[in-house]
């Protein structure tokens, strides 16, 4: 709990935390707080492209849907995608990082080489190709993102494991005959947790951003999903008249990613000042 207290002492990080909590609440309550929740799929041709007004604070889109409602409904999407991708990436990345970091040798070499291959592939192009490979859609986008994001976890955990394996308490545990798996899971992993947590928080923001890019390029979320990136893409041909159409979904992306980044920074400072330089 001292972590939280230290975090809250940093006003910028606290702001990030507040926005994240707010976004989570919005996501959970979305269908109840959106003024027109049926605009997730409904179209109202007679009120196309209205500018912001009391009735529609963010205006309406090309099919006459309330943009405020769709931004609210889209929060759920954004968070769900980010959470799944980050979870999946940790599931792949952490074991690889632990295994590669524990002992030098061919296994470690192969694993880190594999990580490098994935790092060398331009992330977006891989995601685009994957998005075409399976039917484009949110599911595919998530697989593509997880496949390209796990190397970052693998590297983080790899570095932490290498650092910790030389620590006195690990030597002591090995000395009393503890199984390496036990040492890794019960002792190394918890010590690496802050670094993983920081990486995961920043990863949330990063994933939201990349998912939006995929939506924008047409290989992410599928219409009529209220996805933010998709909305910006749909808005392009109505510019500059319908300026409100891309503006608000884009601001939503900015705000949420910003919040996760601020929170990630704060967490890093609060957890361990030594980590300051490991940021990507």
């Amino acid at each position: 709990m001292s972590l939280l207290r230290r975090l809250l002492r940093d006003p910028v990080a606290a702001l990030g935390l507040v926005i994240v909590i707010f976004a989570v609440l919005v996501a959970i309550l979305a269908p109840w707080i959106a003024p027109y929740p049926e605009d997730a799929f409904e179209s109202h041709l007679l009120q196309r492209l209205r500018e912001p007004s009391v009735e529609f604070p963010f205006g309406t889109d090309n099919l006459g849907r309330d943009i405020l409602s769709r931004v609210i409904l889209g929060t759920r999407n954004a968070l769900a995608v980010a959470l799944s991708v980050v979870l999946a990436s940790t599931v792949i990345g952490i074991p690889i990082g632990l295994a590669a970091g524990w002992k030098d040798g061919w296994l470690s070499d192969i694993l880190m080489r594999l990580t490098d291959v994935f790092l060398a592939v331009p992330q977006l192009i891989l995601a685009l190709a994957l998005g075409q490979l399976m039917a484009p859609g949110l599911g595919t986008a998530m697989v593509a993102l997880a496949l390209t994001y796990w190397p970052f976890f693998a590297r983080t955990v790899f570095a932490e494991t290498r650092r910790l394996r030389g620590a006195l308490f690990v030597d002591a545990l090995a000395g009393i005959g503890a199984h390496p798996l036990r040492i890794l899971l019960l002792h190394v992993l918890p010590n690496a947790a802050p670094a993983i947590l920081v990486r995961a928080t920043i990863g949330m923001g990063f994933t939201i951003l990349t998912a939006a890019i995929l939506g924008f390029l047409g290989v992410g979320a599928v219409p009529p999903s209220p996805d933010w990136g998709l909305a910006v893409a749909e808005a392009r041909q109505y510019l500059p008249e319908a300026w409100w159409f891309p503006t608000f979904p884009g601001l939503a992306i900015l705000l949420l990613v910003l919040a996760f980044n601020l929170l990630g920074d704060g967490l890093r400072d609060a957890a361990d000042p030594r980590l300051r330089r490991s940021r990507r």
Partner: protein
Amino acid sequence: MHRAAFRSLFLAALVAVLPLAPRDAEAQQRPLVFGDTMPASLDPHALFDVPSQFVLLNLYDGLYRYQGNPPELLPWLATGHTVSADGLTWDFTLREGATFHDGSALDAEAVVYSFRRLLRMNRGPAGAFTPVLSPENVTATGPLGIRFVLSRPYAPFLSAIPLVAIVNPRLVEANIRDNDFGTAWLSANDAGSGAYRITPQSYQARVQLDLTRYREHFRGWSGNRAPIEEVRVRPVLETSTRILALMRGEIDVSDSYTPPDQVERVNRNARTRVARDESMRTFIIRMNNARAPFDNRDARLCFAHAFNYEGFNDVILRGQVVRNGGPNPNNLWGNPPDLQPYRFDLARAREYCDRARAAGAPLGREIEIHIQSELDQTVQAAQMFQADLRRLGINLRIVPNTWPGITGATARAETTPDMWIHWVSTYFVDPENWVGQMYDSQFHGTWKASSWYRNDGVDTLLRRARASTDRAERETLYQQAIRQVVTDSPDIWVYNTVNLRGLSRRVQGYQFSPVGSGGEIRLMWLEN
């Protein structure tokens, strides 16, 4: 807000950073800048799509050519033709004096070479000929005579003749590598006789192409007092960017698909206008008739009554299209005069759906509609359709796809999507291009016949129409076939396109034809 003040401040700041003051090219005569999509390849025998018609019309010539709207088929390199009574032997006579860009004569040998090359390569437009014509049956009967002997009567033969560009055999032969028919070379070079030639070194695939006027073109230039000397083809990728580039004067000609929401704005601009021409490009929502529930006619009729035609055509597309109730475009011959289009009527749709459900049609399952994500209209139509079908308890799922993705899948009924959206453009002006190739079951496996519709009566009618050389007889046969097809409701026909091409006002002489969409630069001139 004093924009001007800000602007000067801003520019002053920029100029301070930059080596020289920018912009304001002096009043030298600008070439025509053509901003429409460029074909992937310049080889006229390798590709067959709408952008490649630009190459066909400007760099090359054919024996016949379509001009005007409604399109009229005119003798071009040929002076005319005769056809034998059995409809099998076609003799064309070439006009004298036509030359290729290198100055060599365009003779019967070149025509024979071009048709044989097309048929042997078996790509692009070859598909219109290979069923009835083999390479050895194209022969020269003299320096100016060409004979085609078909293996069976094929009435649309003449209307497909303009698809074939005549290439310079000597140039192509000299550039063949590994038996590739010279296609690697021709995909970036010009071996034509057309009104324009490629400016050497200017070509970059899908990025830029410069053309210079060919003064010795066989048609002469007397019809055009101030022909355009230089053309720069600079495709703009995004629709929105293209419109703005037009309005700012960066390009003179945009593409044919100005978004209806932008038409008014382009017309209001002092520099630009939109040319509106009824085309022959139909917008259609396919249903896979080989798969339940679309094997049930009531289910298909339910869908046909659930699409909001007026909402889509008149509101979303702002009335810039024409409702089209059958497979052929309205402005083509062969249509029954009294054809009644289906109307948007959810109550009737519900009745049909109930009947289909009672007959066991699985309308409860999720139905997939494939859209072409980069084409906004397909996305909007699908979303609107989805919202209306939901009211009938039908769950439509939108699946983004691409043109090669879908056409690859339509090779077999099992892989063809439940529904998909596309246009049928004018490749040649004959009902064969629409109803003939879309609903004759012998075309199953092509994207055009991807509704997998099969009706033996319709098959017979369409095949008879294809083999007959009597226009009046063909007209009756097509009318009968279309009546039957519309009754069976295999697909949802939505509209016939009105071609909306953005033009700068200095472009004069623009003449639209459904084939080539008005991209024939020979006819244009510029006013300053």
